[in-house]
């Protein structure tokens, strides 16, 4: 085969009209993904985008790859089958907060436990978009929606804590409207061998407009976000004047005017306990961490399975159907 022409973002667009509400954050995510895919050195035909149901889950229709828009919550399980069947494929799950964490919560945690080589992108708009505005498992307590007109009584999940609790090997956060950062995060996810969980903060301008505004508006970003970089001190603020410090078992924000930079904790993607602390950081006391919170290599489900298949052949010889059928006590008449 000739070396194929290098792929461009356009190669990943389909001829289907994109059907999200004008202004929806999903458009920006789509653009970012379309611009990252060609850079990965993977032939287009080796991408598979799998989704459940929801606005987010419309994603595969707009990606010119192999795609499967499945049923609500089951995308990780279907994607697992795809990846195990053919580990060569680059398998991406596009899913909403409801799809991933409500109906799909069990598959979500088990995929993480097994460390199947999927990139799980969760578009978190803290609402059910497609069904027109019900409370989601990431909606804040007290939230009034169509299904909670008196206010939601439940605490939301912290998606990172759920993922870490399930044994996630890669956890990261991006934001719909911050394309360069999102692209970087997606690039990292693509490289990860096991399950890469990426939470993408996404605005649903129809049913939950401004859910992330307090940290995504241009003028507050620097103060409200902490961009994590492995091996770098965790410093943020418009003037890079604040940092994170460990105090016993908790994190605290220090002002670099009063403290030395050496007190600032250095980000370590491989430290599970640090990831756990970072996962909990919430406004207003803390900036929201973005970028890669955790990344460790661990054996993937499919790699171990493949090894086992090979080992079995080494051990027992390639299975012979004739022998299988003729095994056990036989007799001839």
């Amino acid at each position: 085969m000739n070396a194929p022409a290098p792929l461009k973002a356009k190669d990943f667009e389909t001829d289907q009209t994109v059907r999200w509400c004008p202004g929806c954050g999903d458009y920006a995510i789509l653009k970012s993904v379309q611009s990252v895919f060609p850079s990965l050195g993977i032939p287009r035909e080796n991408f598979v985008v799998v989704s459940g149901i929801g606005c987010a889950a419309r994603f595969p229709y707009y990606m010119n790859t192999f795609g499967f828009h499945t049923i609500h919550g089951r995308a990780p399980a279907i994607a697992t089958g795809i990846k195990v069947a053919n580990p060569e494929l680059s398998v991406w799950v596009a899913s909403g907060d409801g799809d991933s964490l409500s109906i799909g919560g069990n598959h979500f945690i088990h995929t993480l436990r097994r460390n199947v080589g999927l990139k799980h992108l969760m578009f978190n708009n803290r609402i059910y978009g497609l069904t027109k505005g019900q409370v989601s498992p990431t909606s804040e307590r007290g939230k009034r929606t169509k299904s909670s007109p008196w206010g939601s009584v439940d605490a939301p999940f912290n998606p990172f804590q759920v993922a870490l609790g399930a044994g996630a090997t890669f956890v990261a956060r991006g934001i719909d409207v911050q394309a360069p950062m999102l692209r970087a995060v997606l690039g990292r996810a693509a490289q990860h061998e096991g399950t890469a969980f990426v939470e993408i903060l996404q605005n649903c301008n129809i049913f939950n407009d401004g859910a992330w505004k307090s940290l995504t508006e241009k003028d507050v970003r620097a103060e409200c976000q902490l961009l994590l970089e492995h091996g770098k001190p965790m410093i943020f603020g418009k003037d890079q004047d604040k940092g994170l410090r460990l105090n016993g078992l908790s994190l605290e924000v220090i002002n670099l005017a009063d403290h030395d930079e050496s007190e600032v904790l250095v980000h370590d993607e491989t430290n599970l306990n640090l990831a756990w602390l970072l996962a909990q950081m919430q406004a207003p006391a803390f900036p929201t961490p973005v970028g890669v919170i955790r990344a460790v290599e661990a054996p993937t489900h499919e790699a171990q399975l493949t090894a086992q298949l090979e080992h079995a052949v080494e051990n027992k010889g390639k299975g012979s159907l004739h022998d299988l059928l003729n095994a056990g006590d036989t007799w001839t008449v």
Partner: protein
Amino acid sequence: MSTTARPPEGAAPPTSLSRVTLRFAGDSGDGIQVTGSQFTSTSALAGNDIASLPDFPAEIRAPRGTLAGVSGFQLQFSAEDIFTPGDLLDALVAFNPAALKANLEDLKTGGVLIVNVDEFGDRDLTKAGYEANPLEDASLSGYRLFKVPITTLTRRALEELELPTKSVDLCRNFFALGMAYWLYERDPEPTRQWISTKFAKKPKVVEANHLALKAGIAYCDATEAFQERYVVAPAEVKPGKYRNVNGNAALAMGLVAAAERSGKKLFYGSYPITPASDILHELSACRHFGVTTFQAEDEIAAVAAAIGASFAGNLGVTGTSGPGMALKAEAMGLAVTAELPLVIVDIQRGGPSTGLPTKTEQADLLQALYGRNSESPVAILAPATPADCFHLAYEACRLSMQHVVPVVLLSDGYLANGAEPWLIPKVEELPDIDIQHPGPEAAEGGFHPYARDEKLARPWAIPGVAGLEHRIGGIEKANVTGHVNYDPNNHHEMCLLRQEKVDRMVDQVPATELYGDAEGELLVLGWGSTWGALRSAVMQAQDEGQKVSHAHVRSLSPLPADLGDLLGAFERVLIPEINLGQLSMLVRARFLIDAFGLNEVRGKPYTSTRVYQAICDTLEQPAPGRA
């Protein structure tokens, strides 16, 4: 070999029988299943036709000696063709009072009853719920009772080995087996060899079991207890190589065979559930065949992963029992509309809900047909015997991949665990499974994932092939292009197409085999595991001159093309099934025939006696008019 179960010279000649039904029963720790299997293999080697059925207790390890803990193994061996493990017992070996109590009602009057008297102490009797010792009152007078101190005799026989009593007692089943071998003039050699191989690493155990087996035979030789012996001559069976196989093992092999012959990787997604788990176990051992088994977090993930694997080009199979099948419903609907190959195995068990997990039933037919939202047609096959599980599993895979359609395989607990001799097929004689995935050339002029061939199958285009990138999903799609489509007419057309695709598979359904005349007073119509009981009962009726025939449906969806005509040629139709009338409903609705039903839901197979009685009853009914 000095020890033999052959008659000593000069002994009275044995009584010749055409068939014998024998059951071993005892505690789940008593080795009943091994005993039964050994007798089965030996009889098969002796040339008999055989059919066997284990009966496991519902509990893992119910307390020793209780009714809940009774394990059983029944087999029929015969000089003629037989179709079931038998109805009433000619002989029962009961290892303890609970086993006696649970099984006695199946023993024929005058039947042989061997009990281990050592186990009939007061506590044992109480545990089994006996108020008085049945061995000491008249309650067993109708049987040919043999009270044998099996425990004592086994211990004595093994004395010299100086093993702990616990280990010695584990050999009692071979003592009993030895007795049974003597009684039916069986050669103990195959069992001796089996013992040697099985416990090769534990020579003491080999020796102990050999001694126990020998002692059992010797005991019979020595005592006057058994005055009669029996022989069952070899049956005339089709020549070839045989093995004994149960339904689940056969089914698993059928899947592996289909994968091998089609050159596909088998992906089996499952979540353990009785009585389907053994398929997962069997296949998990097949890593060297490249078989992937995926024990999912639940049944939904199991079917979902199988669908994903199919999409990626594997032979995706998922297996479960009724409650798990219910959970798979939504995802099965996805496979229907995505039009992907998928085999869904349902080993039916007693329901509803958790029901009777270890018991058999045939009541998931309508669930398989209709248990999903909207019009969601699938093909359905149902094997008739344990060995048939191999052939229909193979066929289900073939059809599913060639017609690109989900196929349900409906087995049940009785087939799953029941065993029969299987004429081992030659690998090269298995039907071809030619699978075509479109290659890059299919991209020319635009690839259409929902274009259809003459079978109405769409192309099974798998990721990794350049130019065939396409999207599928659960929303309604335009025919040919596969794009999301809300057009009312397209939706109607697609609903009809999905149904028609299944209907056209009727070409692949062989003509229905009719046992008996092509017309008559009564057709007995069945499906699934009742085959043996129906065939036996119909044979009996025919022997008595009744104009009764038997037909058995193996493809429930689509139904065989010839079924309507076939039914029409009989004055009456009787449909026995272990449910409240599911095939009946389909037949009535489709053919407007006032079929009679035999509908008992007792968690166990029909006996041929019961079916025979239903045949007689039905023949006394006036023949219903015809539409």
